[in-house]
């Protein structure tokens, strides 16, 4: 069934990216890079796992005629939208707070934000 393969593909992509994000969170040297890896990759990955769910829902709707599928897809899309809306803002706030609280980037070559502020 093509729907199943699509779903598995989406889930696989999502899992991979989430895993990459988490590995980045673990392995990167300072807050900013960790933040980069964690937020970007996990948001992306979560979108893809949720897309798998949406695909499942539409497949259910069109192939099996299950009317609950539409609700599921709609709610999932709302959840993804919330993630997309909130995650980057949270990341931004953390990065700013980390900078302001004096956490330094690890191999400190140049700090543009500090220069701009000055």
């Amino acid at each position, binding site marked *: 069934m093509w729907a199943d393969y699509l779903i598995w593909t989406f889930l696989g992509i999502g899992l991979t990216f989430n895993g990459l994000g988490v590995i980045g969170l673990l392995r990167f040297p300072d807050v900013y890079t960790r933040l980069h890896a964690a937020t970007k990759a996990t948001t992306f990955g979560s979108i893809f796992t949720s897309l798998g769910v949406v695909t499942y829902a539409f497949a259910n709707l069109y192939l099996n005629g299950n009317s609950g599928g539409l609700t599921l897809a709609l709610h999932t899309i709302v959840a993804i939208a*919330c993630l997309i*809306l*909130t995650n980057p*803002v949270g990341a*931004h*706030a953390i990065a*700013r707070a980390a900078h302001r609280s004096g956490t330094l980037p690890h191999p400190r070559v140049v700090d543009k934000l500090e220069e701009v502020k000055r």
Partner: protein
Amino acid sequence: MMSKIVRTQASFLYTFILIFGFYIVAHGHLTPGGGFQGGAVIATGIALIAVAFNFSNVKRWIKKTHLTAAEGIGLLTFLITALIGIGTSFFYNWLANSGLIFGQRVSYGVNPGYLNTAGTLPVMNLAVGIEVFGGLGVIILYMLNYVKEVRNDAS
């Protein structure tokens, strides 16, 4: 006051949280959720506003007295809704299966759910939602106010 990005997003998300909280409250008898959960969601919206914007502005927008009044009114609505049933007994569900508003009959078993059912439950959900929203919101505001005051005194 946080950065402009956060503020913009907060002012947008606040409406969203409000709508979603109201959805949770109103669908309390059909889907997971209900008065407490919806009220807590809306109160978190207040917490979001309180953290994202300058506190002096927040103080101007959201008055503690209004929240306390909302709390009291919600509780009184809840109590009086329960009290109306005292013809039979306190907390009697006098609207259920009566055919009036919220009084539609449901048959046992699987159904997609209709908003117009469950008697006094939606009313109580709404009342408790208002109460919890007021209560938790006012707790956050009290604490913020106190923290600000302490810091002003220290400086």
